């Protein structure tokens, strides 16, 4: 099992959700996050005074899947979240040790 953690531009969330539904992924968790990468921040203006916004809003998706789905999932997310402009985000893949579905007590492969 793997946990795919993708940080994407917020307005791409719907695209990505539809795309991963199409390949049969049945669940994900979304978190609103802030951060910076190469895009860095930008300056904003309030009542004549400029200020630096260092952390930009992004959306983070956490998706637990079987090993055989991972490669396809990463491709699909990359495609759906792509704009070609700086700040498109990143995808991280972790090993997932264990999973439990709380309602039924099902474990691991059956739980995701």
């Amino acid at each position, binding site marked *: 099992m793997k946990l795919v953690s993708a940080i994407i531009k917020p307005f791409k969330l719907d695209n990505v959700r539809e795309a991963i539904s199409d390949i049969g992924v049945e669940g994900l968790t979304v978190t609103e996050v802030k951060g910076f990468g190469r895009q860095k921040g930008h300056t904003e*203006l309030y009542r*004549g005074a400029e200020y630096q916004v260092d952390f930009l809003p992004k959306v983070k998706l956490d998706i637990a899947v079987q090993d055989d789905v991972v490669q396809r999932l990463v491709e699909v997310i990359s495609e759906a979240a792509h704009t070609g402009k700086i700040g498109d985000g990143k995808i991280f893949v972790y090993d997932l040790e264990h999973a439990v579905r709380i309602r039924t007590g099902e474990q691991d492969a059956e739980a995701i």
Partner: protein
Amino acid sequence: MEQNIFQLQYAMDTFYFLICGALVMWMAAGFSMLEAGLVRAKNTTEILTKNVALYAIACMMYLCIGYDIMYGGGIFLSGIETVDPAKVLADFSAREDGFSGSAIYSAASDFYFQVVFVATAMSIVSGAVAERMKLWAFLAFTVVLTGVIYPIEGSWTWGGNAVFGLYTLSELGFSDFAGSGIVHMAGAAAALAGVLLLGARKGKYSADGRINAIPGANLPMATLGTFILWMGWFGFNGGSVLKLGDIASSHSVAMVFLNTNAAAAAGALAALIFAKILFKKADLTMVLNGALAGLVVITAEPSTPTPLQASLFGAIAGIVVVLSIISLDKLKIDDPVGAISVHGVVGLLGLLLVPITNNASTITGQLIGAATIFVWVFVTSFVVWFVLKKLVGIRVSEDEEYEGVDKSDCGLEAYPEFTGS
């Protein structure tokens, strides 16, 4: 028949006063929303508490002694509860200029209309000292301003009394229709005294002289507050005609509504365009301040300008307010909502523009009046703030300011999370 028409005129002018008073009361909601929108989320509950409490204190203090000091209306308004219709009708018949003569209305409606102005003056203060002043020191100051400082100033202007028995402002050609100076600049003078003793919010000005932005938490709320104030202002200026019940007066009321609206619109537009030129961006908070500046500037005389003049005055105010906000920041006078610029600087501008359209006023009279109001309110407020500072302190601790005064003063947050529900 004539007696019945007088009865109706009394009823109409009383009713008009009450409706306008209710509109001005609603400005308390406008100030609350504007201030809640322009402070940070962690100080929202406290600024709302201040706004509700200051309104209530203003009403109580004006009822107890303020109205008596300003207009001789009796301590605790004694005697206001009775009316003798026969005497009222006799007053109507005795009026020299007959039906179109000066308004006669219920004394209770007059109190109600006047009391909401007191609250407006105090609302101006709460925005300027936001995010760092102790709640109870602020409320203590509110008691003094609304009970004594403002009523004494009002007794010299609208009350017609001589200033310390020395000179009478109305005889010098001073004219302030609905209170650009008497209400707005007075509130700003009290606010300025408080801000000077209080100091800037932590982090607003860096040691190297940089001015840091502290963005407001909720601009939809600030915009709603501005529109509420804009609407309430029709009562503020329109009611100050004091009479609706004849052709000349009702036309005057209509002109006041028209000019008030035109000045606000022109002020918003001028600030929008000026901010775009100056900062390359359409800064919404400046546009909001521009609309309010238009309203403040026309308040000194909304009945005599032509619609074009009213629009020009509003536009000038919209530009002046932006320049004033930037200048105050350079002087390190931290005013989170721009109250001192909107109500003080532009209030003064409004007074000085009156002689252009109103021949009954003079520029000397306006200057002396403005100086009298400012010096009196600023000096007495400074003394009260200073005494409060020495006795109980007026500023919250550094930790409390960092955590937000919602928690330290009110014990609750405006937008709670993880509450278990």
